[in-house]
């Protein structure tokens, strides 16, 4: 069971990285290049991830 949930979790994580563009190192580097070819996408990835994780962890803790 834990093996299966870990597999699903890893798969979702990887798909999230690809869809968000974060599997592309060029996008990450451009987030860090404020004075050059800046691409703010990473901030949106972080925002989306923290939003879901924050509410999800809260639910998990409430049930525990």
């Amino acid at each position, binding site marked *: 069971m834990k093996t299966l949930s870990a597999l699903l979790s890893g798969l*979702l*994580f990887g*798909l999230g990285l690809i869809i*968000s563009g974060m599997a*592309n190192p060029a996008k990450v580097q451009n987030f860090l290049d404020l004075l050059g070819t800046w691409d703010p996408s990473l901030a949106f990835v*972080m925002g989306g991830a923290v939003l*879901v994780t924050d509410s*999800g962890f809260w639910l998990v803790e409430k049930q525990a």
Partner: protein
Amino acid sequence: MPTEFTPFLSLIGGGLIGLSAVIMMAANGRIAGISGIVSRLLPPSIDRAGLPQGLSFLAGLLLAAPVYFMATGNPPSQTVSDNLLLLGVAGILVGFGSVLGSGCTSGHGVCGISRFSRRSIVATLTFMATAFITVFLLRHVFGG
């Protein structure tokens, strides 16, 4: 080289990463931190009891690219150096740095910030700041 700003896809992708972290916490009681999971697969900090779930998380992560390709017909877009030696050295530095910092963007950045962990917030601010400085130096001071 410029990359396209993708606010919507990035938000959706971020949400999937969040969902992954929630599943890992709810079903496995673990933090979905890539550097932590990978470092516990190897000596010296190998976690034998957690090996099956660690390996299957990694397998899922690596399966994402072929699954994405089968679903969309397009390979994930990537721009990386063709210098394999440089990539290898960079990979080692990433691994070394994230273990030294007790976590990376996933463990500290996503999971830690979501738990309002002061340690993770400080870690994330520190590695983001040093990353901004590194890119500034490499691209704008020493040329690129």
